[in-house]
C-alpha cells in the first residue's frame, strides 16, 4: 500500500475564470445541442567587436561572398567542395569566432539599433544593440526575421527592362537617358515615389535632387505609414513630430486604438518600458485599451473596451468632457464645445468616469496614446490631454520628425496619380515600396504606372510594381548596404553592411545619389557626407565615425529638446463637431484595415518564418482572415471558414471569415499585406488581398460596408485550436489584490509532490542552468519564437503540415481566452464576446526527472551534468516515444526532411543556397526522422564556457551572471525570460526561482522542471469591477 497521498484537485470555484481558446471550443464545452457538438467535435502552434578598417572589411566581404557561393555550389553529384584557405588572414577575422557588427533597421519610423552576428562574413542572427536607446539589446520579431529576408532566394538578382535581364550599366545608362530629357525643363515631369524615410542621408539627397531638378516632385507612400500621427502633431504643435513614450514611468496607460506593444512605431522601447512598470506590487502599472480588434496590446490590457474604430474618437471626446467637467481649470485648454460630448453608444459609464479618475489621480505618471490608424484630430486631442494631465515631458516626449517635408501618405499618392492621369509625368522613379499592390484601390495606381514613359522601380523582388514598370532594379537588403536612421527619440545610428550585396542590388540612397548626380554614388560616401559637419577635419570625423560604427550610435538621443505646446486654436479647429454616421448594423458594417503583426503591409510576405509564425492572437498562420465578433457572425449567419464577399460601394473583395472573440460588434478586422501575387515562392497567393477595399480618403477604417457569404469554404491552419484550459493550473494568474493577500497563490494552485523522491537526488556541482518566464510581463508578441527559429536552424513546414500539427517551433506562445464566470450564465454572449487573454510561452522545461529520457530505447536523450535534458541527434532513431511521454508536448519530430521538402519547392528540391548561408554553424541541422527540442541554447552555453575557461590568463573563471543569454531571452523585449546558473546564489535566476509568484507547470508530476513560471498578475481598477 502506498502512503502517498493523492493530490487533491479542487474543482473550479463557482466564480473562477473559464479558460478556452476559441469559440468552437467554448460552444463544445457549453452547448447542450448535440448537433452543434457533433458538428464541432471533429474540429481540428555583447557589445560590438572592434571595427576594422572599413575598406578592407568590405573587400573581405566580397571575397567571402564569392567563397561561400563557391562552397555551396552543388550539382546532382556529390558536391565538389573547394576550400580556399586564408593565404593572408584578414585582420580581426578568426575562423569559427563569431563577430558582431552594429547596424540599424527602419521599423515603421523607429530606427532600431541592432548587433548582427556574423560567421566568417555571413550574417546569421540579429540581436538588439544594448547601446542603442530604441533597443537596449532587445528586438522585435520582424528584426529577428529580417536575416531571412536577406537570404530570400526569390530576391531579384539583376536589373531588368521589361522583364529582360540587363546589367547595372544598362540601367545607369537608361536612367541617365531619362534624366537628360529633364535636364532642360528643370525636372518637370520627373517624379520620385519613396517610402517615408527616417534617414538623414535620404533627406539630404532629396534636397540635392531638387537642386538639380527644381521642378521635380517627391511623393511619399506607405501602406502602413504614421501620417496621421505626424499630421496630428503638426496640427497641434505647428511642426511635424512623433511622440516617444516613456512607459516605464507611466502608472496608468490608456491606449486609443494604439498597438503600442507590437505594430506601432517604437514597439520595442514601449514593450521594454511597459514591462519595467509591470512589476506586481504597489506601483504596478495599469493598461486600458480601446480598440476594435484584439492586438497584442489589447491582449495585455487590464481593461479592454472593444469599440468600432470610428467611435474611438467619440470615446476620447467623452473622456475629455469628463475631465473638463471634473477639473475645469486644469483642462481649460479644451474648447468649451467638448463639454457637451457624449460617449458613443455601447460605452459603459465606468469607462468614462473611472478611467478619467484613474488618469487624473496619476497625472504626471499617466499616458494616453493614440493609434496611427486614428485620424489626426484624435492625436491633437490626445496631445492636449497629455499636456493637461502633466504627462508631456514625463511619460511622453516629442521629437521633430527627420523628414519635415513628408506629407500625408494617401493625399500625396493621390496627387501623384492625378498628375499621371493628367499626363504630367514622364519619368517616375519608385524607391522601395510596392504601390501597385498596396495603393488604395480608388487611385488605380497600377494602371497608371503602366502608362508612364520612363518608370524605374527599385524593389527587392520583381513584385507587383516591378512587373508593371519599364525598368526594375533590385533593392539591396539593409544588411548589405550603408545607410543611417534616426530613432523616435532622435538618436542617429549608422547602418553598416554585413555582407556585400548577394545580387546586383543597390540601396535607395545610392539610386538617389545617381539621380542627384552626387560625386560618389557609393552608399558609404553618401552617408559620411551627410554626417561630416562642414569644417570638421576628416581626421577627426574618422575617429567619430569609427566609434559610431563600433557602438552603433552616431548621435545620442536628445534628452531635453524644444518644448511642444498645443496650440489652442489648432485644438478648437481639430475638434469641430462631426455628425455621427448611421448606426452600425448588419447592413452598415465597419471595416478596419490592420497593420499585420507579421507582414506589416506585405513587405515581408516572402519570409517563411513569418508566414509560419502564428498570429499572436488568432494563432492563424500562412493566411489572414476577416475577423468578426461572435454576435456579428451570428447575426450574419457566418461561421469561421466561410468565404465572404465584403462590399463597399462599387468595390469588393473576397476573404475568409474568422470569428474572433473580443472583436467589436459590427466591425470587421482586415489585416493588410496578404494575397500578394508576385511575392515569391513562399508568399504569393497566401491569404487575401484587402487593398481592393481601401480608399485614399478612408485609409484605415470605413463604414457603410456590407457582407455576403459566397458559399465557398476555406481551410485555415492554426498552431493552436479549440481547447479550453479545463480548469487546470496551466497559465496561473491572479489579480493584484489576490497576489498581495496570497503572494504564493501560484504554488498553491500548481503544487509539487509532497512525497519523498524514489531515487537518490542528483547533485549538480558545476553549473545548474535554470530559467523563469514571467507571465505578468509577457505580451505574447512572438519575438522569442522567431529568435529561436533563427538561432537553432528550425525548419519551416508549410501550411498543410501545420494543419497536420507538425510545426517545429521549439518555443511556442500559448494563448488562452479568459472569461470570468462572474458573467453569470456560461452561455451569456458576454462571456465569449469580451474575454481577456493569457499568454504562456512554452519550450522544453528541462525536467530534472525527465519522462522523455527513460523511455528512449537508444539513450538518445540524456541528462547532462549541468541538468540539461540533451538530444544526441546522431543517436536518435525516431521512435517518438519521448514525444508521447512529454507532458508539455514540446518535442518536435522531423516527420519529413523539412529542409529539403521545403516551402521553396518545387524549384529547389534542396535548401536554396542562400538560405543555407543563414544557418547557425554551431547548431546541427537535423535530418528527417530525428526528434528535436529546446536545448536552452546549449551552443551558447558551451561557447560562453569556453570563453570563460580561456580567460583570466588561461586559468579560467565561471561564466558570470548575465554574460550568457538564450536566444529567446536575449530577444524578448519585455525581458520576461531570464536564464542563468542556479548554483550561483547571487544570480538573478536564483532570486527569481525564490520569487513568490513562481510555480512549476505540471509540478505535481514530480518531473522537477528547471523552467519555472512566474504567475500572471493583473491590475484591474477596483472601480471598474462589478
Amino acid at each position, binding site marked *: 500500500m502506498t502512503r502517498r497521498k493523492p493530490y487533491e484537485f479542487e474543482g473550479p470555484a463557482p466564480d473562477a475564470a473559464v479558460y478556452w481558446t476559441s469559440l468552437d471550443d467554448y460552444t463544445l464545452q457549453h452547448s447542450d445541442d448535440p448537433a452543434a457538438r457533433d458538428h464541432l467535435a471533429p474540429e481540428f502552434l555583447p557589445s560590438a567587436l572592434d571595427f576594422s578598417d572599413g575598406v578592407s572589411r568590405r573587400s573581405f566581404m566580397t571575397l567571402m561572398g564569392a567563397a561561400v557561393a563557391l562552397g555551396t555550389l552543388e550539382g546532382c553529384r556529390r558536391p565538389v567542395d573547394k576550400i580556399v584557405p586564408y593565404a593572408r588572414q584578414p585582420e580581426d577575422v578568426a575562423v569559427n569566432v563569431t563577430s558582431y557588427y552594429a547596424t540599424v533597421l527602419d521599423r515603421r519610423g523607429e530606427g532600431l539599433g541592432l548587433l548582427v552576428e556574423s560567421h566568417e562574413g555571413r550574417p546569421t542572427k540579429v540581436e538588439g544593440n544594448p547601446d542603442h536607446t530604441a533597443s537596449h539589446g532587445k528586438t522585435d520579431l520582424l528584426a529577428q526575421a529580417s536575416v531571412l529576408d536577406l537570404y530570400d532566394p526569390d530576391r531579384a538578382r539583376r536589373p531588368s527592362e521589361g522583364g529582360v535581364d540587363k546589367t547595372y550599366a544598362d540601367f545607369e545608362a537608361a536612367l541617365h537617358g531619362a534624366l537628360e530629357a529633364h535636364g532642360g525643363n528643370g525636372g518637370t515631369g520627373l517624379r520620385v515615389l519613396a517610402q517615408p524615410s527616417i534617414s538623414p542621408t535620404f533627406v539630404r539627397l532629396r534636397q540635392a535632387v531638387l537642386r538639380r531638378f527644381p521642378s521635380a516632385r517627391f511623393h511619399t507612400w506607405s501602406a502602413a505609414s504614421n501620417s496621421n500621427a505626424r499630421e496630428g502633431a503638426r496640427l497641434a504643435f505647428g511642426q511635424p513630430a512623433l511622440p516617444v513614450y516613456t512607459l516605464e514611468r507611466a502608472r496608468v496607460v490608456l491606449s486609443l486604438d494604439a498597438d503600442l506593444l507590437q505594430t506601432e512605431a517604437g514597439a520595442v522601447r514601449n514593450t521594454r518600458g511597459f514591462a519595467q512598470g509591470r512589476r506586481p506590487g504597489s506601483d504596478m502599472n495599469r493598461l486600458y485599451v480601446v480598440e476594435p480588434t484584439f492586438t497584442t496590446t489589447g491582449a495585455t490590457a487590464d481593461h479592454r473596451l472593444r469599440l468600432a474604430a470610428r467611435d474611438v474618437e467619440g470615446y476620447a471626446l467623452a473622456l475629455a468632457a469628463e475631465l473638463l467637467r471634473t477639473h475645469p481649470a486644469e483642462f481649460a485648454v479644451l474648447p468649451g464645445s467638448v463639454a457637451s460630448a457624449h460617449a458613443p453608444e455601447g460605452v459603459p459609464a465606468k469607462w468614462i468616469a473611472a478611467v478619467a479618475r484613474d488618469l487624473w489621480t496619476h497625472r504626471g505618471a499617466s499616458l494616453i496614446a493614440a493609434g496611427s490608424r486614428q485620424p489626426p484630430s484624435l492625436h491633437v486631442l490626445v496631445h492636449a490631454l497629455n499636456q493637461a494631465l502633466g504627462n508631456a515631458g514625463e511619460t511622453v516626449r516629442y521629437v521633430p520628425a527627420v523628414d519635415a517635408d513628408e506629407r500625408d501618405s494617401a493625399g500625396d499618392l493621390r496627387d501623384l496619380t492625378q498628375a499621371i492621369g493628367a499626363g504630367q509625368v514622364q519619368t517616375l522613379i519608385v524607391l522601395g515600396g510596392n504601390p501597385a499592390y498596396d495603393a488604395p484601390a480608388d487611385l488605380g495606381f497600377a494602371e497608371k504606372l503602366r502608362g508612364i514613359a520612363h518608370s524605374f522601380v527599385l524593389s527587392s523582388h520583381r513584385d507587383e510594381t516591378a512587373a508593371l514598370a519599364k525598368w526594375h532594379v533590385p533593392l539591396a537588403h539593409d544588411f548589405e548596404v550603408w545607410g543611417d536612421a534616426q530613432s523616435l527619440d532622435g538618436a542617429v545610428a549608422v547602418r553598416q553592411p554585413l555582407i556585400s550585396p548577394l545580387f546586383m542590388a543597390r540601396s535607395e540612397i545610392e539610386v538617389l545619389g545617381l539621380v542627384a548626380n552626387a560625386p560618389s554614388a557609393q552608399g558609404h560616401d553618401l552617408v559620411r557626407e551627410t554626417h561630416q559637419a562642414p569644417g570638421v577635419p576628416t581626421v577627426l570625423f574618422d575617429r567619430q565615425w569609427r566609434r559610431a560604427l563600433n557602438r552603433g550610435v552616431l548621435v545620442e538621443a536628445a534628452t531635453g529638446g524644444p518644448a511642444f505646446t498645443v496650440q489652442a486654436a489648432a485644438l478648437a479647429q481639430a475638434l469641430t463637431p462631426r455628425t455621427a454616421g448611421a448606426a452600425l448594423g448588419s447592413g452598415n458594417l465597419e471595416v478596419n484595415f490592420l497593420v499585420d503583426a507579421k507582414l506589416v503591409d506585405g513587405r515581408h510576405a516572402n519570409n517563411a518564418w513569418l508566414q509560419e509564425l502564428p498570429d499572436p492572437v488568432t494563432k492563424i498562420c500562412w493566411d489572414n482572415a476577416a475577423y468578426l465578433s461572435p454576435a456579428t457572425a451570428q447575426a450574419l449567419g457566418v461561421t469561421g471558414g466561410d468565404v465572404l464577399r465584403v462590399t463597399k460601394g462599387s468595390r469588393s473583395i473576397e476573404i475568409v471569415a474568422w470569428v474572433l472573440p473580443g472583436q467589436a460588434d459590427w466591425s470587421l478586422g482586415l489585416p493588410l499585406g496578404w494575397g500578394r501575387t508576385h511575392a515569391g515562392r513562399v508568399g504569393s497567393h497566401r491569404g487575401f488581398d484587402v487593398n481592393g477595399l481601401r480608399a485614399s480618403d478612408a485609409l484605415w477604417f470605413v463604414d457603410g460596408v456590407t457582407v455576403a457569404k459566397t458559399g465557398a469554404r476555406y481551410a485555415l491552419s492554426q498552431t493552436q485550436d479549440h481547447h479550453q484550459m479545463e480548469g487546470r493550473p496551466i497559465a496561473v494568474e491572479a489579480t493584484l489584490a489576490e497576489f498581495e493577500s496570497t503572494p504564493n497563490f501560484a504554488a498553491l494552485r500548481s503544487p509539487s509532490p509532497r512525497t519523498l523522491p524514489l531515487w537518490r537526488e542528483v547533485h549538480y556541482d558545476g553549473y545548474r542552468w535554470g530559467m523563469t518566464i514571467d507571465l505578468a510581463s509577457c505580451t505574447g508578441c512572438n519575438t522569442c519564437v522567431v529568435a529561436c527559429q533563427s538561432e537553432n536552424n528550425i525548419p519551416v513546414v508549410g501550411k498543410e503540415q501545420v494543419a497536420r500539427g507538425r510545426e517545429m517551433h521549439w518555443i*511556442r506562445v500559448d494563448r488562452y481566452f479568459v472569461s470570468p464566470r462572474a458573467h453569470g450564465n456560461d452561455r451569456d454572449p458576454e462571456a465569449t464576446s469580451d474575454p481577456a487573454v493569457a499568454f504562456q510561452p*512554452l519550450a522544453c522545461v528541462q525536467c530534472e526527472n525527465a519522462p522523455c529520457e527513460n523511455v528512449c530505447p537508444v539513450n538518445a536523450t540524456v541528462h547532462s551534468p549541468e541538468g540539461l535534458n540533451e538530444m544526441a541527434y546522431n543517436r536518435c*532513431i525516431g*521512435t517518438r516515444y519521448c514525444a508521447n511521454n512529454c507532458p508539455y508536448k514540446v518535442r518536435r519530430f522531423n516527420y519529413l526532411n523539412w529542409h529539403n521538402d521545403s516551402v521553396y519547392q518545387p524549384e529547389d528540391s534542396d535548401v536554396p543556397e542562400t538560405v543555407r548561408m543563414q544557418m547557425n554553424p554551431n547548431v546541427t541541422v537535423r535530418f528527417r*526522422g530525428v526528434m528535436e527540442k529546446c536545448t536552452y541554447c546549449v551552443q551558447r552555453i558551451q561557447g560562453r564556457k569556453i570563453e570563460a575557461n580561456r580567460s583570466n590568463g588561461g586559468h579560467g573563471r565561471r561564466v558570470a551572471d548575465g554574460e550568457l543569454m538564450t536566444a529567446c531571452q536575449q530577444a524578448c523585449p519585455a525581458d520576461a525570460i531570464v536564464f542563468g546558473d542556479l548554483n550561483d546564489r547571487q544570480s538573478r535566476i536564483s532570486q527569481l526561482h525564490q520569487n513568490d509568484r513562481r510555480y512549476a507547470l505540471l509540478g505535481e508530476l514530480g518531473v522537477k522542471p528547471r523552467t519555472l513560471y512566474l504567475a500572471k498578475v493583473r491590475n484591474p481598477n477596483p472601480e471598474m469591477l462589478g
Partner: protein
Amino acid sequence: MSFHAPIRAIGEKDLVAPKSSFRSITEAVSRVSETPAPKGWWIAFLTALSFTGVLGLAVGYLFWRGIGVWGNNSPVAWAWDITNFVWWVGIGHAGTLISAVLFLFRQKWRTSINRFAEAMTIFAVICALLFPGIHVGRVWHAYYLFPIPNQMGAWPNFKSPLLWDVFAVSTYFTVSLLFWYVGLIPDFATLRDRAKNATRRFSYGFLALGWRGSNRHWQTYERAYMILAALSTPLVLSVHSVVSFDFATSVEPGWHTTIFPPYFVAGAVFSGFAMVMTLLLIARAVFKLTDLVTMTHIELMNKIMLATGTLVGYAYAMEFFIAWYSGNQYERYVFINRATGPYAWAYWIMITCNVISPQLFWSKRLRTNIPLSFVVSIFINIGMWFERFVIIVTSLHRDFVPSSWGYFHPTLIDIGTYLGSLGLFFTLFLLFLRWVPMIAIAELKSVLPEASPHHGEHQDGASEEHGTPALAAEGN
C-alpha cells in the same frame, strides 16, 4: 479424471466425426497439398498477394519520404503504426494459448485447431514485428535497438519499455516458431512418405529432419513438445504484459495505469480467438474440414471469447472507476473525453464490438450458429483494433496542456500499410494452407478411439460405443 480416458467417458463429445479413421484423417489433410489448388485458393492468394504489393509500395514510399507520409503528428506521435503492432501481437496470442496452455491442461479438443492457431501466431507476429521496424524515423539506424558492442560504448537504454518490447517480442517469435516447427515434424514426414515426386520428397524430407516415427523419436518429440509448451506458456502472459508496459510506465493520462498487463493479456486472447475463428470458419468451408473441426470446437471457442470479452469489458469499466476514484483531473478528463470527445465514435465502436457483441454467446443457440459466429469474430477483430486505437490515439490527442491538443487524420499510406499487413498475413497464411498440413495429423489421430491403448480390448458387440462403463471404470 484420467488423461487416457476415452473422451465420451469423461462426458465430452467426439472431437472428430464418428467415421474418421487414421486413414481418412491423413487423406483429408494431406490431399490439400497434393492436389491442385482449388480456384478459390488462387483468387484468395492473388488478392492477398496484391495487398502485399501494396504494403511493399507503402513501406517503400515511407522509407523514401519519412514518417510524415503517415498522419502522425504532434501530439499524436504514435497512431496506426503502434495500433497495428499491438493488434497483431494480440492476435498472435491465441495461437500460443491454444497450442501451449491448452496442451498443458490436456484440452484435447485443441488438436484440430492448434496447427492453425500456431501458424496464425507466427504470421501475426511477423506482421507485428513489421511495425516497430518501420515506424522509426531512421530505419537505417534501427539496429541501435540491439545491444551490439561498439567502440563508442553506446548501449541501448535498458530502462526503456520499448527495448523490453524488442526482447519480449523476438523471444516470443523464436519460441513460437520452434514450437510450431517441432509439432510439424511428424506431419512433414507423413507428406514425405506420400510424396510422388522427387521435389516433394526432398523438400518435405528436408523439413522432416529424418523422422522415421520410431519409438525413440516419439519419446524425444513428446518431451521436446512438452518443454516448448512449458516455455511458451509464460510468454503468453509476458509478451502482452511487456507490450502494455509501453503505455503503463509512461506519465500520460490514459496510459499510466496498473491494470494494463492483465487487461492486455485478456484482450490479446480475446482477439486471437476471434481471428482463429474467422480463419477456421473460412478454411473449414473451403477445404471441407467439417469432420475435423466440429461444432464442439466452435462452441468452446465462442465460450472463451465470451469469457475474455467480458474480462475486457470489466477492464474498461474499471479504468473509468479508477479514473474517477484517483481524483486525478487529467486522468478523469481522458476517460470522459474517450466516451464523449472527438473520438467518441471510436470508443463506442470498441464497446459495441468488444463488450456487447460477445454477450450473444450466452445463448447456446447463438454460439452454435456458424454465420453468427463468423460475424461476431469479425466484429471482435474490428473492436480490438479500435481498442488499441482508442488507448493510443485518444490518450495522446488530449493530454496535459490544452494548447497542444490535436487530432489525427490517417493518410492513404496509413491505410495502405494496414491493409498491406493484412495482405502479408493472408499471403503467408494461404501458402501455409496449401503447403503445410493445416491440421496436426499426428495429434488428431491421438484423439481417435483407435489411438487409445485399450482400443479393441473389449469387442462385445458394442464396439462402436467407445465409452463403455467398463472403460470408464478402468480410466481411473
